[in-house]
Structure formats: structure tokens, C-alpha cells
């Protein structure tokens, strides 16, 4: 799926950019150099970037400029990276946030 706005009546056509590959949750996606993780994933039709740590409900971008931290993902093993501010790199491995165990909560998930 290509969700990119290739042509625009005022901004013109998208300039040619270098295509690169990155991984998100074990699947390989194509994106363009300089794109943020959030933009590259949305262009590939991926909206859900993580599961809420406690409730497990899906979350995507909200503010898209780094203020809200809703789009936090794990990048090359590093947690809590904002997908909206982080450019993709060739071979980058991105993982969505998961629901975390809550062993001390009644009815919560065990470790």
C-alpha cells in the first residue's frame, strides 16, 4: 500500500528519495530516507504503534510532533522512543509497545 501524497496541487510532486528497508514487529517495510517511523508506517497502512501497558488497548500517533508520547516504540532494543520524531534507518528494527504483566493486580496478567 502506498499512502503517500505523490502529487500535490501547490507543493508539487514528491522529490525522488532513497528507498530503505526497516522492520516493525517482524515484518519488513519499505520507507524513504529521512521519513519518521510514524510516517513510514502510516504510509504502509500501519496505524497501531503499541498496546497500552496496562489496558492493552491499541494506540497510534496523537500529536505527531513529540509532545504527547503516545507513539512510543522500541527502536533497536531501546524503549520509549517517539516514532513521530525518529527517522527510519536502513535495517532498523522497531517493535511495538506491549501490554505489561501486572502480577499484583487482581485479575492482572502474570509475569
Amino acid at each position, binding site marked *: 500500500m502506498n499512502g503517500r501524497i505523490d502529487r500535490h496541487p501547490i507543493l508539487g510532486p514528491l522529490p525522488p528519495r532513497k528507498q530503505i528497508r526497516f522492520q516493525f514487529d517482524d515484518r519488513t517495510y519499505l520507507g524513504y530516507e529521512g521519513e519518521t517511523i510514524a510516517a513510514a508506517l502510516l504510509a504502509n497502512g500501519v496505524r497501531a504503534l503499541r498496546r497500552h501497558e496496562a489496558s492493552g488497548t*491499541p494506540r497510534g500517533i496523537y500529536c505527531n510532533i513529540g509532545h504527547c508520547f503516545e507513539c512510543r516504540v522500541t527502536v533497536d532494543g531501546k524503549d520509549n522512543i517517539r516514532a513521530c520524531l525518529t527517522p527510519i534507518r536502513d535495517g532498523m528494527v522497531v517493535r511495538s509497545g506491549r501490554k505489561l504483566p501486572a502480577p499484583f493486580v487482581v485479575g492482572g496478567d502474570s509475569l
Partner: protein
Amino acid sequence: MTDVLIIGAGPAGLSAAIACAENGLRVKILDEFVKPGGRLLGQLHQEPDGKWWNGIEEASALHERAMSLGVELVLGASVFAVRRKEHGWQAESTKGVHQARVLLLATGAAEWPVPIPGWTLPGVMSIGAAQVMTNVHRVRVGRRGVIIGINLLAAAIARELQLAGIELAAMVLPLRSTATGESANPMHVMKSLSHIAPLAPSAWIRTAGKLLKYPAFRQLGVRFFPRGGVRIWGIPVHLRKCAVEIYGTSQVKGVRIADVTPDGRVVPGSDKDVPADFVCIAGGLYPLAELAAVAGCPLMPVPELGGFVPVHNETMQTPLPGLYVAGNITGIENARIAMAQGTVAGLSISLDNGKGGAGMRERLEQAVDHVRRLRESAPIRFHPRVSEGRAKMAEAWRQRQADQGAST
């Protein structure tokens, strides 16, 4: 060592950097985004004279000028602390610790979040997020959307989404709650519609816009607001409908919309489902002033400027030595004004640091005048009474100076 450290590479920060560097100061800018330009980047609208304001071009002109003057720019750097040091200021960021004699905060604005049932679903985003995705990243936020919140920013970005070929099903009010307040009240929003009039090519709004300053007409306007909404650029704008809930399980499927009374109460049983694959929440902007607070700068609530604003004077000084502010951190206004304020800050910093020679004070005064003229002639305003807000701040500054004079 850097003379001036600027936080924020938007219209204010870049303009300030240019003015400082032109006067021989060494400047470094920190910004957390991937590109310089701040929120200038997404802006795209037609001016009253028919010319297009293209924020990407404006940003790149400022960026090139700053680079040609030797300004150092660090992108992807989130500043989380600023503190006063013996000989100036220190900013701690995700890309190291930076020090300078002078610190300028040009952090811009943030959007008010508007909590509505279902707003955490993937596909729901702030209106500014949609602007950045569309015009900066050139990625489609969806096929068909609903905008929740009726205000100037929402109307401007709705047009930008439409230009990119994205369909908008409706613009509606948010559900009335303690969080949404006046923005969910048709009477209140009706009043603000008159300020959208110069931007919106809607016969109804243009005609009504002139009458809406009279309270009696506002009541009539709300009562007789067209059932099918008023169209702005073909997008139905509903002043008498609100978003009750955003529905979907793994992502947005649509918005449940209900009729509201003239004061914003939901009419029971009037709800209808509007299918959509994305939703934009438009709560308006507030000055992003946390770093000023962290720095120890006093803040003052000024509703006409959009919220809490660092205390400052017309030459962008704060009460703290070597700390300056410029742009939307001082109040919500358009990008041209932010640029002009940045120039004021840059000249002010130059003057305070003995740069620019004898003519500097006069140049600074001219730059301050320029900001005032831009404000007076602005075709559209985020807040209609912004000049009153500026006057309040100027008075607070004078009072502060007088109190300090009296106590010393």
C-alpha cells in the same frame, strides 16, 4: 563558546538566530524535530491577495540564511532542563549539554487535548498532527475524516487536507464536558465564527460574520443555523451537532454525532453514525512555556494570548538576566508575527551584548513597531483580543519594574 543558545528552530528561533548572527554573535539552535522550520513547515494557505503562503519555502529561506551566517543547528535534540549558571545558561538535551551566555526560548505552542470517548483509538489525532503528516511528510492520514472542534486552526487545516485530496465528512463540536468548556457551546463558537469569516469562502459565514458581533444576532444565528450545516470549501460545518463518541475496536471506524441545544446539551435520541477512517481533534493552541517555568521565569495567565505566558517586555527580555523569549511562547499569533518577534529578540540580545553600534537602539525600536503593525493589520487572528493581552503583559512588566524600583 556559543554566545546565544536558542531552543526552537521555528519562525521565531530562526529569525532571532539570523539577527544575532548578523550582528556578530555566535549562535546555536536546538530543535527536537527532524527538520528546521517548526510549525511553519506545515502551513499552506492563500493570502487575501491570492498568493500562497507556503511554510516549507518560508522555512527553507530562513534556514539557508541562518546557515550562510554560520549558525549551528542541532536537530533531534529534546531539551528537558535549563538552568542558570554563573556566566549564563545551560540546556540539557537528548543530544548533550549546551551552554551559552544568553538563552532564547522559542518553543512555540502546543495543542489543547480534548478528551472524548474513543479518542485513544489509532486514527484519532490532533489537527496539527494531520497537518504535519499531510504537508511535511506527505503521507495520507486517511480517506475520509471528521474534525472535532470548530475554530480557525481547524478551518485552515481542513482546507490543507482537502488540497491533498482527503475527504472531510464533517466538522462538529466536541461533546460538552468540564474539559471542553466553551468550545462545546454553540453560542460561544458562533461568536468566534465571525473571526473565521475572512478565511472561509462561505456565503453564510461571511454574511453572518458581520452580524455576529451583536449578541441578539448570535442567538438568532444559533437558533436558525442550517440543519445540514454551513459549507466551508464544501465541508459541512455543524454548529448544532457534537461528537458523542469515536467508535472502532482496533482503529477508528466512525464518529457518533448528536444534535445539541443552543447551549451545547445533547438532544437525546438524535445520535447518528458517521463512518470515517480518521478523526482530527482541534482544541486550539496554547503557549509551550514549560522550559520558562523550569528556568525560574515567572509566568502569567493571559487568556487573550492563549494561556500561561512567561513575563516579558516588548523587547523580549524576561525578568531573568540573559533569558529571552520570542514567538508563540509569548502568545498565540501567526507565523509572520513570530518571525518579526524573533528579529526583535535577536536585535535586543545584540544590543544587550554591546553589538550593532550606535544605531542599534533605533533598529530595535523599529523592529518592535513592525511587530505592532503586523498585529494590527493581520487579516485573521487566533484570538480577536490579542492586542489587549499584549497590553496586559506590558502593564504587568511596568508594574514589576516599578515595584522593584520601590523596593531597592
